[in-house]
C-alpha cells in the first residue's frame, strides 16, 4: 500500500549512482540493512534521518571509507567494491570541513590537483575558478585559522568541486553554522549545484534543510530507507507512520476500517473521535493510522461547516513562535490536537488557554498510513 512511486522529473536522466541491497554490519549491529537507491545525473539528493539511522555510514561507503558487507554500489555504472577512496570519481565535504590547517586557502584547494601531478598552469587556473565559484577570490594566501566557519566551509566546497567529481558528497555540511548563515548557505548550495550541474548527495538530520534544498529525499530509519520522494510529496503524502511523524508536525490517531462506500470513500471508526468518512482510493481492511497536519486544522468559535470534521474542546496550551502559533486543543472526546495558526496580521487574534472552541479539518486532508 502507500503512495504510488510517482516518476520524478529527473528520471529520464542517466543513472549515476546505483545502490543495490547494500548491507553494512558493525559487529552484530546492522548500520545499513538492505538499501536500494537510484540517483540520476544532476540531482540534488538528500539522505534524511535521525542520528544513528545509517545515513552517514551509507555516505562513507560511497566515498570508500567503509566497505559494504553485502550488495553493490555502482558509480557511473562501475562496481566500486575494490576501488580505494583516492581513486573514486566522488569527492566529499566533511562535517568538520577538514580544511588542512597548515596550508593556505590556495594550497588547500590545489591539493587534490597537485597530488595527482596536474600541470602547474592548470592548477593555477582551476583553483582560481573554484575559489571564484564559492566567492573566495582574494583569500588565496589566508590560513584556515584566519577564516570564519562559513568561509572554511567554502574552502572545503571549492576543494571538492575543483576535482570535478561525478558526485559530490556532503556530510551534514550546514550543521556547524548559525541559523541565519545556514539559511543563506542552503540557497547558495542549490544555486551552486544548478550552476555546476554536478550530482549532490547530502546527508542531514535537519528536515528543513532537506525539504528546502533537495530534488528528492530518502528518509532512513534503522538502516532502512522508508520513503524516497520529492519534498512536497514527502510532506503531504508520507507513506508510513515514521515518515509522517519525522517530517514536520503531525496529529496521529488510529482507527479500524468499518466499510467502503462508492466513490472511493472509506468509513473508519476511530477510538475516540467517532466515525469518520474519508476519501481513499484503495480498499483497506483492519487497523490503520490516520494523520492530519496541524496547519490543515481550523479553529473556530462556532461549529465548522458540515463539509468538515468538527470537534468541540478546550484550549490546553498556546505556544507562540513569531510567524506562527501552535495551539493545543484538548477535545472533549479525549485526544489532544495541535493546530498551527499563521500570524498573517499584527492584530491576529490568539486563543487563550481555557477557551472553549471548535476544531476540525477537511476530510480530504486526512492521511491514511500503514504501520
Amino acid at each position, binding site marked *: 500500500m502507500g503512495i504510488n512511486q510517482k516518476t520524478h522529473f529527473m528520471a529520464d536522466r542517466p543513472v549515476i549512482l546505483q545502490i543495490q541491497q547494500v548491507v553494512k554490519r558493525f559487529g552484530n549491529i546492522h548500520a545499513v540493512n538492505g538499501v536500494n537507491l537510484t540517483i540520476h545525473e544532476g540531482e540534488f539528493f538528500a539522505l534524511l534521518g535521525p542520528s544513528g539511522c545509517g545515513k552517514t555510514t551509507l555516505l562513507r561507503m560511497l566515498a570508500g*571509507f567503509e566497505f559494504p558487507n553485502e550488495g553493490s554500489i555502482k558509480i557511473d555504472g562501475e562496481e566500486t567494491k575494490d576501488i580505494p577512496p*583516492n581513486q573514486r570519481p566522488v569527492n566529499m565535504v566533511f562535517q*568538520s570541513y577538514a580544511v588542512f*590547517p597548515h596550508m593556505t586557502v590556495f594550497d588547500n584547494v590545489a*591539493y587534490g590537483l597537485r597530488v595527482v601531478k596536474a600541470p602547474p598552469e592548470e592548477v593555477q587556473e582551476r583553483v582560481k575558478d573554484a575559489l571564484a565559484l564559492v566567492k573566495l577570490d582574494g583569500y588565496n594566501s589566508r590560513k584556515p585559522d584566519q577564516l570564519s566557519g562559513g568561509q572554511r566551509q567554502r574552502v572545503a566546497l571549492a576543494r*571538492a568541486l575543483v*576535482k570535478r567529481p561525478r558526485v559530490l558528497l556532503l556530510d551534514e555540511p550546514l550543521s556547524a553554522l548559525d541559523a541565519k548563515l545556514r539559511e543563506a548557505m542552503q540557497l547558495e548550495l542549490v544555486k551552486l549545484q544548478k550552476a555546476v550541474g554536478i550530482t549532490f548527495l547530502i546527508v542531514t538530520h535537519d528536515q528543513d534543510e532537506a525539504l528546502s534544498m533537495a530534488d528528492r529525499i530518502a528518509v532512513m530509519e534503522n538502516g532502512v530507507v522508508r520513503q524516497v520522494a520529492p519534498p512536497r510529496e514527502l510532506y503531504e503524502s508520507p507513506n508510513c507512520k515514521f515518515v509522517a511523524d519525522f517530517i514536520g508536525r503531525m496529529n496521529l490517531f488510529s482507527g479500524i476500517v468499518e466499510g467502503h462506500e462508492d466513490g472511493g470513500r472509506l468509513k473508519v471508526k476511530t477510538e475516540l473521535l467517532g466515525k469518520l468518512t474519508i476519501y481513499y482510493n484503495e480498499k483497506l481492511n483492519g487497523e490503520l493510522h490516520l494523520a492530519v497536519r496541524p496547519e490543515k486544522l481550523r479553529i473556530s468559535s462556532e461549529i465548522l461547516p458540515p463539509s468538515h470534521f468538527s470537534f468541540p474542546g478546550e484550549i490546553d496550551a498556546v505556544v507562540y513562535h513569531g510567524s506562527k502559533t501552535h495551539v493545543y486543543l484538548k477535545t472533549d472526546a479525549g485526544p489532544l490536537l495541535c493546530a498551527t495558526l499563521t500570524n498573517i496580521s499584527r492584530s491576529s487574534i490568539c486563543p487563550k488557554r481555557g477557551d472553549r472552541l471548535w476544531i476540525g479539518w477537511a476530510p480530504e486532508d486526512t492521511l491514511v498510513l500503514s504501520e
Partner: protein
Amino acid sequence: MSFRSNNPIGPLDYSRRTWMKLILLGTFVFLYAPIITLVAFSFNDSRRNIVWRGFTFKYYEKAWNNSSLVEAFANSLTIALLSTLISVVLGTMTAILLWRFRFPGKAGYEGLMSLPIVIPEICLGVAMMAFFSRIGWPSGLHWPLNLAAITIAHISFSFPFVTVVIRARLASFNRELEEAAKDLGAGEWQAFKNILIPHMRPGLIAAALLAFTLSLDDFVITFFTSGPDTITLPIKIYSMIRFSVTPEVNAVSSVLIAVTLIMTTLALWFQGRNGNQPEDTFHG
C-alpha cells in the same frame, strides 16, 4: 584615606601581590642560582672553586686541550644524535601504531612499552650490562661502532618517551583530515607525509629535544654499558671530580649548557617559523 584605591587588586591579580612576588623570586633563586654559580666559577682564576680570584678563559683552554675530555664530549654528542634519530623514528611509529590500530593485547603492550619510563635506571643499567655480556657483544670495535651498545641502551629508554609525546599530539588529530586527503586523491604515504607529519611536527621537535637531553646527560645506564674506550661526558666528569672539582669541570658543564640552550632555541625558532609563516607545504 580610602579603603577603595583607584585600581584595587583583583582576586586573580597574583602578580600584584607582594608575598607572591617574593615566592616567585625565591623560586627563581632556588632554581637558577646553582647554574649561574657554575657558569660564573668556570671563569674563576683559581684552582679551587671557593673564592673568586679574577676572570680567566684559562680553564676553557685547558678543557679544549684535554684530549680525553674532548673525546668524551664527541662520544656523547654522537651517541645523543644517533639515539635521538632512531628513537624518534621508532617512537613515532609505535605511537601511530597504538593510535591507529586495535589489536589483541594492546593494553598489555602499552603497559610493557612504558616500563622503561618507570623502571629504576639502575635496574635497566644492570640488565643491559648482563644482556650485552650474555650475548657476547663484541668490544674493541672502531669508532663509532664501539658506541653501539650505549646507543642501543639509550634508544631503549628514550623511545617510550617519544611515543608518549607523539601520542599526546596525535590525540588532537582530526581523522577527517586524513580522509579528506585520501578523498582528494592522495595515497596512504602521501596522506601521511602531507597531512599527518605536519600535524605531528611540534610533537616531533619536542620529542627529539627530550630524547637528545635524556641521552646526553645519562649517567647510570651509560656507566654499565660503557667500556674503557667508550667514555661519555657525564662519566668523564664523574671521574674528574673524584679527585677535585676544578674550574675545568665547570667550563665543560658550561659548554654543555650552552649547547642545550642553543639547540632548544633553534628548535623553538624553527617551530615558530613553521607555525606563522605561510609557506609552500606541498612537496609532491
